């Protein structure tokens, strides 16, 4: 069975407009979360977010390509970086053996999308956004000459992780040569109002895996991975191998996880089995770690149950305090961080924003650590009980 090697990365978040900026800022413990400037902050439970302040060069990029919406701009920008990183040209991509799989959380946004939010944070109603993702996907396919299958997966906050899993399996099981995959998402006032109503937002800062946690904050951006079949790549080349994936559904609640962690255990175990590795082989787990009361205790329970005695030895971290919960992009941006952890044998820290009593697991906070990471897991859990996990392995095993 063909393995999938990651040969290109693209990343856009409030920490920076490139993968290298993102990784550098992450490892210096920075947070890009700031006061929301793009839409009205009235009646929001928290007025901070991982908002991307679009710089002039990105605006120029958008204007050059006639891109009119944030989600399209973010997707284009990150895909362009990832493809340049991989060295793949449009000629190579224009065959049925090249695919595109993107994750977006809610599906089409609830508000009309423009580049800047301006006065468009609320519109007359969903009639204006009746359409589907056709335009976004068609546009990306045309821009990047993707000749094969292109689609969007919408599994809430597990979308990005599920998209990567699907892409990996397309290479392993369906004969694809290349699949561009990841996730993209944008902030808007309706999402913040919705999460205000649901009490998922913290009133302070995001404190994952602490006793003091009380909610999350959201962000936006895009994470893109270029997966290629291993037999077409130089031995030892690439960032890492996407070696395992798992999917499950809690089938219980819409806005909260199954507190027993059964679904989370299932996806992590499936990813391990898919990769042919054992719990003891895992050198790092990139947590979903949203900082909500329900998620973190569930995820901690799941890790303890699955990993048993080794649970306390595995370094863990969540990057959500640094960039916010980027929804459909979260699983993909976190996958980028996980891939880089494997590549650089370094665990990015959880941004330490005010301390707290940590769970009794090895949550890396404040500063990165060097570690032997042959295999690493990245988890994502979303509304509707959607769960996903992907496992990355070193190319030099």
């Amino acid at each position, binding site marked *: 069975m063909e393995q999938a090697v990651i040969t290109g990365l693209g990343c856009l978040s409030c920490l920076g407009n490139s993968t290298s900026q993102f990784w550098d800022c992450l490892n210096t413990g920075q947070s890009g979360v700031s006061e929301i400037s793009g839409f009205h902050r009235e009646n929001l439970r928290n007025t901070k977010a991982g908002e991307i302040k679009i710089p002039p060069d990105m605006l120029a990029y958008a204007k050059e390509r006639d891109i009119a919406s944030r989600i399209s701009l973010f997707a284009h920008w990150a895909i362009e970086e990832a493809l340049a990183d991989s060295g793949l040209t449009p000629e190579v991509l224009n065959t049925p053996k090249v695919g595109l799989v993107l994750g977006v959380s809610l599906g089409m946004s609830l508000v009309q999308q423009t580049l800047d939010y301006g006065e468009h944070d609320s519109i007359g109603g969903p009639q204006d956004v009746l359409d589907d993702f056709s335009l976004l996907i068609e546009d990306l396919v045309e821009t990047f000459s993707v000749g094969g299958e292109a689609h969007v997966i919408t599994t809430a906050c597990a979308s990005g992780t599920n998209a990567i899993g699907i892409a990996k399996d397309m290479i392993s*099981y369906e004969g694809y040569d290349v699949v561009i995959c990841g996730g993209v998402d944008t902030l808007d006032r309706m999402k913040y109002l919705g999460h205000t109503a649901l009490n998922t937002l913290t009133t302070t800062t995001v404190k994952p895996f602490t006793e003091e946690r009380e909610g999350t904050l959201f962000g936006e951006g895009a994470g893109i991975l270029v997966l290629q079949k291993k037999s077409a790549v130089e031995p030892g080349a690439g960032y890492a191998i996407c070696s395992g994936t798992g999917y499950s559904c809690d089938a219980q609640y819409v806005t909260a996880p199954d507190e027993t962690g059964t679904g989370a255990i299932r996806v992590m175990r499936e990813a391990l089995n898919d990769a042919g590795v054992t719990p003891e082989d895992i050198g790092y787990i990139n947590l979903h770690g949203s900082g909500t009361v329900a998620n973190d205790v569930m995820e901690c329970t799941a890790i303890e149950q699955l990993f048993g005695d080794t649970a306390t030895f595995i370094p863990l971290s969540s990057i959500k305090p640094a960039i916010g919960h980027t929804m459909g992009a979260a699983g993909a941006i976190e996958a980028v961080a996980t891939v880089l952890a494997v590549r650089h044998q370094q665990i990015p820290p959880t941004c330490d924003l005010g301390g707290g009593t940590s769970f009794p697991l090895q949550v890396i906070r404040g500063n990165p650590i060097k570690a032997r990471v042959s295999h690493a897991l990245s988890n994502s859990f979303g509304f509707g009980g959607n769960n996903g996990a992907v496992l990355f392995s070193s190319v030099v095993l």
Partner: protein
Amino acid sequence: MVCPPSNPDPIVISGIGLLSALGTDRQGFFDFLSGAPGKRPGLPECGEGPLLNFLGIQDPRLKIARYMDPTSKNAIVALGQALQDADLDSEAIQENPHNYGILFGNLRGPLETRAKLYEAFEKKNRRIVSGTLFSQCGYNMAAAMSAVAYGIKGPNLTFTSPRNLVIYLLRRGTQLLWKNCVHTIFLGCSTQRNTSESGDHSQLGELAMVLCMENKSHALQRRAVGYVEFEETLCSSQVDMGSFESGNMYVASSLLNDVSDASALVKQTESMNLHTPEELRLDEAFVPLIKLGFLVNGIRGGACSSGFLINQVNKETSIISLRRGKT
């Protein structure tokens, strides 16, 4: 792209669930579609309001949440029908819930819920939104609520694509079954009425259809009957139709227009002219799923022993072949 693993467990379709403005009668729906214009039974008198209300369908599973979009409710009903048709009971799912998955296609999300969200938002002077409605706004909710209704805990994935959505859905289902992370996938769609100002808001746009796909080994193990074997192959764009058997098959002839020798083949076969039923206002993207269901239904009902569904997909010809299952 279709590259099965070595010795793949064949895939079968063992059940169909369908809900439309014509009711829950699957055969009646397919008879309506296949009837010649002018010979069809009249369409129902439909008006405002959800389809399930119009049909008078009630089910305890429709009360699993305080609020659900009509597309979620319709999906729950259709999935239940697929279970029944496949002779699967909920106890089997409860024993191994992670071995069952759900794959849905969705083009526009839960429009009625989104409209209600905005209505409520306006009433509150654009200051607050309903958390309940907001939480049901995602494209994934029909699949998610179906999982809650039946306790299905395997992969739960919702896809959208501007082209070939049904083919991609089938490939994803095939991928998961080959991988053996599940042995049964409920695959389908649940579409909504056109609630825009220019739409007529009637139930005629509502449709939910679910196929039960499973590994053949599992179907044999549970002694399933009446299943149809399913396989997709890919060809270069020039397909030699002479290579296919010409007797005793239904062919979705409208899809053969681009294929050489199609007209000759169609003349030789007993064929049904299954054209896009515009009167039902069905979403074009899901017509291949309906045609697939029509063929499966015909094969299972004994009208024929095999059938083909042909589509042009990304410069290749996809041929889905269906054969009456052999035990």
